[in-house]
């Protein structure tokens, strides 16, 4: 199965940023562990709230250019649910896969997406939790 990498060039909503080289290594490693072929990553533009590359990859996935998208992290998903739904619906309809390399999460079925949505909510709410004990 061929997976297209997807890396970021701006700070993720959780405030972290990693070198693109490191992001690619994490993706490559996650793909290798699952026996997927890794296709050179596309980079999301650093412009605030820009998801042009994300939508481009969805378009290419729809056109069967590859079997899945290998994200560096779930933190790269767009904040609006309707934008995430576009990916979910396509995965279900065309039997595709998305891999979130850092978290080692794979989504393929409806139940995976529900779990991911809960996880995203949890992550989002954690910003209100104390950081110091």
């Amino acid at each position, binding site marked *: 199965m061929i997976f297209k990498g997807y890396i970021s*060039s701006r700070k993720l909503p959780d405030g972290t940023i990693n070198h693109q080289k490191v992001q690619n290594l994490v993706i490559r490693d996650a793909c290798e562990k699952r026996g997927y072929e890794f296709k050179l990553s596309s980079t999301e533009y650093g412009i605030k709230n820009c998801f*042009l*590359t994300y939508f481009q990859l969805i378009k290419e996935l729809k056109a069967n250019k590859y079997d899945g998208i290998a994200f560096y992290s779930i933190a790269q998903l767009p904040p609006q649910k309707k934008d995430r739904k576009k990916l979910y619906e396509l995965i279900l309809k065309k039997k595709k896969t998305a891999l979130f390399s850092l978290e080692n999460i794979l989504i393929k079925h409806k139940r995976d997406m529900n779990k991911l949505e809960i996880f995203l909510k949890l992550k989002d709410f954690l910003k209100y939790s104390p950081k110091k004990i």
Partner: protein
Amino acid sequence: MKLYNKFEKNFINKGFIINKSENPKSTRYLSNFLKKRLVRLLNLKINFKNLNLNQLHLYVKSNELNKIRLKLISQINKDLKFRRNYFLVAKNMIHHIVGNELAMQININLSIQFPNDESSLLPIHSDTWSGDSPFESVLWLPMVNCYRTKSMFILEAKKMDYFNKTFSKKSIKSVDDLYSKFKKNLKFIKINYGEFLLFNQNLPHGNLINRTNETRVSLNCRFKGLFTPYMQKDLGSFFSPLKLRAATKLGLDYKLPG
């Protein structure tokens, strides 16, 4: 006070400069290096001088292209003379446009684009959108004559205001959509082997599927003022110092007495 000379004005207003190599010997070194390594990598029974890079697609299968390209990139970047000669091709112009205390990208890149190959496309982008500093300039060297889709495209500098206005309307849906919106304003660079292109990477640029019947082979590398701001591509991991002036060396070493 005269702020900019004619080269600088040209670079600011147009976004790029094309000139003859300042050092043809250096250009020849780069070309010969590539040809020699290719002949060896591909086990060709010809003299490297007879290898026509325009016809490279006749010697390499598409699915092996990236492997060959990566091997070549690794060899290029192990050779210090390659790096030195790369700079010498446009040293004076880089001094005019970028400065004379310089940082150079650690790895020189190599692009090989076979006719009709979809695998090595670089969609419309500005390097600053993916972690490069707006203080960088790209020195792009064609190893074959490049024209139309065999070359790269760039948005004309005078169209940048229009681009920014349209972009901020947020009506663009994907990278393809971005390209279609500005297609009319993109200019394909016509440049021959033996010339160099120095361009402003803040301007949107990229390439399309090469629809000519020749292969494009080109090199690219970024230069910036050593002390200008770095973004994600920083000094050490992406750039290395190329030239420091004596006064800077003294400043760096200086300690107040006591």
